[in-house]
């Protein structure tokens, strides 16, 4: 849970600025004067809700949280702390990994909702500052033809991604052999492989839920 709270800062910064950039780029690409301004807000909303917040923020979390989990558990393995748990008769995998999976599965959706709000807020501010879309038009666009299922889709993806990030990272940390160098290697592998798993599952979930 602490890891999730620690990630609030980076999620906030990235979400606000990406939301701002998506709004500006969309506005710049809509050159036709017949297309109303509020379409910029609609495009921003769909980009943030469907893809940026659940997928890109999860990829960022795969780097931050995944490497932390792999290196923490890996260090416990090479310093024999996991052996100490096993000798005491404690199921070390369950004791160390399960709480992390539960915490991530519960807290990542909170982070993603937070990211969606901040991404849209970034677009709201940046669009007006750049003189591309007024607050009124942006708010109207956000409310227009909104499909609530997109939120279900985003949160379902988030829960699946959270499970993949924690379980893959924990696997690499738990089975590390050797010393500090191997912990670093396991941490890198954890981030790379959980990112790949995340991208593939993103495609599969999109096929299943939106096709």
């Amino acid at each position, binding site marked *: 849970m602490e890891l999730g709270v620690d990630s609030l800062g980076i999620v906030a910064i990235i979400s606000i600025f990406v939301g701002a950039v998506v709004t500006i780029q969309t506005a710049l690409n809509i050159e036709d004067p017949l297309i109303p301004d509020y379409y910029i807000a609609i495009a921003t909303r769909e980009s943030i809700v469907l893809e940026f917040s659940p997928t890109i923020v999860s990829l960022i979390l795969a780097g931050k949280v995944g490497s932390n989990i792999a290196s923490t558990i890996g260090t*416990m393995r090479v*310093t*024999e*702390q996991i*052996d*100490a748990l*096993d*000798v*005491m*008769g*404690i199921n070390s995998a369950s004791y160390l990994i399960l709480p992390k999976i539960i915490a991530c599965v519960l807290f990542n959706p909170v982070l993603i909702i937070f990211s969606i709000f901040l991404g849209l807020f970034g677009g709201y501010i940046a669009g007006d500052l750049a003189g591309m879309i007024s607050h009124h038009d942006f708010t109207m666009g956000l409310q227009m033809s909104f499909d609530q299922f997109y939120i279900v889709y985003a949160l379902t993806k988030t829960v699946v991604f959270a499970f993949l990030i924690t379980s893959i990272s924990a696997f690499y940390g738990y089975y590390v052999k050797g010393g500090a160098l191997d912990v670093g290697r396991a941490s890198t592998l954890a981030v790379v492989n959980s990112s790949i798993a995340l991208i593939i599952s993103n495609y599969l979930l999109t096929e299943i839920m939106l096709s």
Partner: protein
Amino acid sequence: MIEVRDIKKAFGDDEILKGISVKFEAGKTHLVIGRSGSGKTVFIKSILGLHEINSGEIFFDGVSLGEMDKKNRLQLRQEIGMVFQGGALFDSMTVEENVMFPLNMFTEKTYEEKLERVNFCLDRVNLNDSNLKLPSELSGGMQKRVAIARAIALNPKYLFCDEPNSGLDPDTSIVIDQLIKEITEEFGITTIINTHDMNSVLEIGEHIILLKQGYKVWEGTKEEVLITRNKDVEEFVFRSKLFKKVREALIK
């Protein structure tokens, strides 16, 4: 008492333990000595059940480890204390939390009762003002002492120590050795220590076994180790000129 009968352990094609049999009596300090790579750590971890043995049998007070069900194994685990080479203290926990950890996991005691036990164990290892320190704030010797305190928190019947003196200065090594010996005698524990520290061998080695390339090549007491003509003991223990001189003086 722990009895090991003809245990063999291999990792793939690499056979580490090649049929070791030995008895470890209660209330004594048993030392397993041998060069690095001789199989000492694998031997101790096999007895603990951290490595599954390929063949042979291990008996704890006459009961075979292989025939114990999950419940009995869990019960046995609570009767085992282990001091790892690096201490293996949980580095996110304070000294007090580390020692209290097994009590939290396996007893129904109140916090006050657990704290009393923690303070008793820390007092026993002469560490009574470090409760709230983190392991990173302690010296190597202090970390080993906390590890011993944690190992004895549940009043174990069996105590295993993997190179408890490695990385420690001679003074601290002697303190740790004496502490383990005192605890062993005081509580009638079966203690097995992996070491290649010859000072420990001569100080506390009531029963010593020498491992070489996965075989037990010699067994005896600290008095016998000084006078034996066993070639492997001579090669391992008396390679140092100082020990050679000690031995010659004793034989004379």
